[in-house]
């Protein structure tokens, strides 16, 4: 469904992606994992034709219209209400405005429908961006860190929504820093580090391969094993659950 073959990308002298090859199959939740700066957003930008790769091939099996996107920047109109933001897109897609109402309900924003975006919290904005991405029931959905910065409850409801969408037949391509989330949610994951794929497969399969199964599949130790680097959690004012990379001891 989504394919990338030998893709290379450099910004100036900095190589951001080297020889990236993977395939996401239809009706699966595909997770692209990696620390900050690994190149996850760059891959999404290339797949969605917002950025040209230096070499290699890539493609999606459905038309641009049949894809939905929630990007790293939400691109919402801050002076307009939630409903107005969505209605711009129902109009562009030529679908009934009722769909906007439905989408707001799905992400739990029905009560905020007339609130201006500038008055929403970060998590609410994120959910609104997700609502916009699923408005037209796209067959392929790109989600760049859909749960980052959300409180545990909201994150869980987003994950439930993602699973529902998959069960209804959508293919979901998501990126995350959160290994635990990936294990719970994804059918297939690609571990990316500094622009290189270091491991890929079904989460449990990867963990089995690396005997990293303790009580639950532990992708994090796999990552440390294959890269010698660490995904480490830190807490700050932006909240728990963001990860940065630290040199291994």
């Amino acid at each position, binding site marked *: 469904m989504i394919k990338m073959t030998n893709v290379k990308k450099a910004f100036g002298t900095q190589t951001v992606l080297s020889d990236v090859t993977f395939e996401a199959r239809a009706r699966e939740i595909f997770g692209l994992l990696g620390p900050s700066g690994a190149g996850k957003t760059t891959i999404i930008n290339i797949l*969605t034709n*917002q*950025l040209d790769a230096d070499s290699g091939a890539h493609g999606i099996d459905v038309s*641009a*219209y049949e894809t939905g*996107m929630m*990007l790293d*920047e*939400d*691109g*919402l*109109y*801050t*002076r*307009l209400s939630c409903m*107005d933001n969505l*209605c*711009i*897109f129902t*109009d*562009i*897609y*030529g679908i009934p405005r009722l769909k906007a109402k439905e989408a707001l309900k799905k992400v739990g924003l029905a009560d905020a429908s007339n609130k*201006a975006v500038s008055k929403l919290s970060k998590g609410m904005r994120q959910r609104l961006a997700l609502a*916009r991405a699923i408005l037209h029931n796209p067959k392929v959905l790109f989600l760049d860190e859909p749960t980052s910065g959300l409180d545990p409850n909201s994150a869980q409801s987003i994950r439930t929504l993602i699973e529902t969408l998959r069960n209804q037949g959508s293919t979901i391509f998501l990126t995350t820093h959160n290994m635990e989330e990936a294990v719970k949610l994804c059918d297939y994951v690609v571990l990316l580090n500094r622009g290189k794929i270091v491991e890929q497969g079904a989460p449990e399969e990867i963990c089995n391969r690396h005997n990293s199964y303790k009580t639950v599949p532990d992708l994090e130790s796999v990552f440390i094993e294959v890269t010698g680097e660490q995904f480490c959690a830190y807490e700050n004012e932006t909240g728990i659950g963001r990860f940065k990379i630290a040199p291994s001891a």
Partner: protein
Amino acid sequence: MTSVKAIFIKQAKDMTKNFSVLIMFIIFPLVAFGMTELVARGGMAGMSEYISDTMFVTMMASIFVGMALIQCACGIIAEDRETKSLRCLVIAGVKPHSYLLGIGGVVFTASLLTAIVFGLIARFERSDFLAFMLIMASGTIASILLGATVGIFSKNQQAAAGLSMPLAMILGFGPMVAQFNYNVGRVFSIFYTQQINVLVNDFSAGITEPLIVIWANIAVFAVLFAIAYKKKGLRN
């Protein structure tokens, strides 16, 4: 067509909530009204003998078209670019001409309404009113295209303001300098703002030739916009 309509509605709603843009469409006629009533018609200190009834209207109208509109169109596009909302539209399949027509349509409508107010303040005769509207409409299209080009080249609103401000100043005030200096007038006569200034000051001289210059400007700006779009895209 549905995209144009969607963008038009979005922009119209957004503009009513965006004071910094809205004010431009109000302040120019307001100042023109005040000056016309107090100075030109009010006979303030006997000045009215030297000042025609329409002088302040034509002055403010030509500054409005040549300055405020460039910045307005430029600011809107630069903001959409900076917030990445434009990127969402592009991804949803909105073509550049649809986007431009939607945004430009709102600015154009607002500008025409403002032009009507200017015309009422000046109390133009019917035929003069029509000529005035024709000139304002043509100038508005030129300014929107020029502003859009600058807006697309700018990464964010600050950069856009930095670029459009001096440009608008030159195009807006140049014609006024030209009134006092023949050589400046000759140089500026190739720019649409100069032609607008000449036209709104004197309809009797015939509006065909100046309109040709204005529409030649529009053609050049349209090409510039197309190049800017190709180079910068509406992405990222």
